[in-house]
């Protein structure tokens, strides 16, 4: 274990380095590459998915350049009326709200369960996807 890398290597951003850096693409208009240190698919895929929901995003993709380096790069291209940074900021705000809602609803469900300790009603058919009768 003498040459084992320190275990905190995948958690702590090295001193003097920035966790997030943005580099505008010189050849593609309205495109930028974000490098996020010490984060993985958890955040990368989440951001990519949320960005792709935005109609102003032309391209959004992420990759982890090397499995042993704990960082990912996120490439975004947007329509000319906005910028990758603005879109990313906007979508992160949406995600924070989404996760906040899930948290709130989970806690509410737990509280209502403790208030009514009987068997919780299980909805047999959730109205999430109507059956299509063609």
């Amino acid at each position, binding site marked *: 274990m003498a040459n084992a890398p320190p275990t905190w290597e995948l958690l702590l951003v090295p001193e003097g380095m920035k966790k997030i850096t943005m580099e505008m693409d010189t050849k593609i208009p309205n495109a930028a590459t974000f490098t996020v240190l010490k984060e993985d698919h958890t955040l990368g895929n989440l951001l990519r998915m949320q960005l792709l*929901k935005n109609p102003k995003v032309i391209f959004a993709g992420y990759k982890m350049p090397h499995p042993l380096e704990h960082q990912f790069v996120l490439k975004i291209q947007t329509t000319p009326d906005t910028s990758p940074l*603005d879109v990313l900021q906007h979508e992160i705000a949406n*995600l*924070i*709200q989404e996760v906040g*809602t*899930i948290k709130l*609803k989970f806690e509410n469900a737990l509280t209502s369960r403790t208030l009514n300790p009987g068997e919780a009603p299980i909805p047999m058919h*959730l109205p999430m996807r109507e059956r299509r009768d063609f």
Partner: protein
Amino acid sequence: MDATAFAQETGPTITLLEVKDSPETRSVSFILSKTDLATANALRRVMIAEVPTMAIDLVEFESNTSVLTDEFLAHRLGLIPLNSEQVGTITYTRECSCQQYCPQCSVELHLNVRCTEDHTREVTTRDLVSSHTSIAPVLNGPNDRGILIAKLRKGQEINLRCIAKKGTAKEHAKWSPCAGVAFEYDPHNRLRHTTYWIEDDVKSEWPVSANGRFEPEVAEDEPFDYNAKPEAFYMTVEGTGALDPKEIVTTGLRILQAKLSLVQLLLKEIAEERGAVARPPMNGFH
């Protein structure tokens, strides 16, 4: 109706299915719906790898005359789940102001067993003595014999000191609070995200999971909707005993929120920096 109330109407929903709280199983099952696959998967990943718990990290051997090697025992000790309800009061050792470790960032446990009887002495987590009031090996009630660590013959002894530290499973899996996280969507394979390996017939060879009752079956002549996306995610979180499964979910969501907030803050800094570059100081000229 304010913005948050509106979000609750349209945003993701949670349906609690089952909360098991018996000594055998501690788990929570729920349906997370009206959200994206990536969100559900991020939650799953955070619960497994980024919820902090306590685990034994350093072991100092005073004596070990058992048949097991020091390394072997140390590894076994590391994997023992410790009750981590109080993990919030402990700081990470790397963030602590102390030199090596201190009561603020670690908990000391002692194991001192010597076999003097003629029959085999089983060393279990019951023999581990913690210096902390609540951070101690997980036990399910007074009848639980504890987790077997080693067996001793007459005359053999183990005497060691353990240092338990706070950590996350990103560093080592021993810090994971989850024994298992079940994650399923689209139980009828309507979206065809998977191809079943079959000999003759899919229906008889691949029984639909228990979650199939929440979604309508796929009709024989139903056209394939290639725009459909998974919307309901069936999750079951089973804890190791270190944390209450409900706690794992809420802490996981909180960590995910904090992670996003940090990115938001850093992006704001970048935006401000770039704003400053785009508008250089006037230097007296107007």
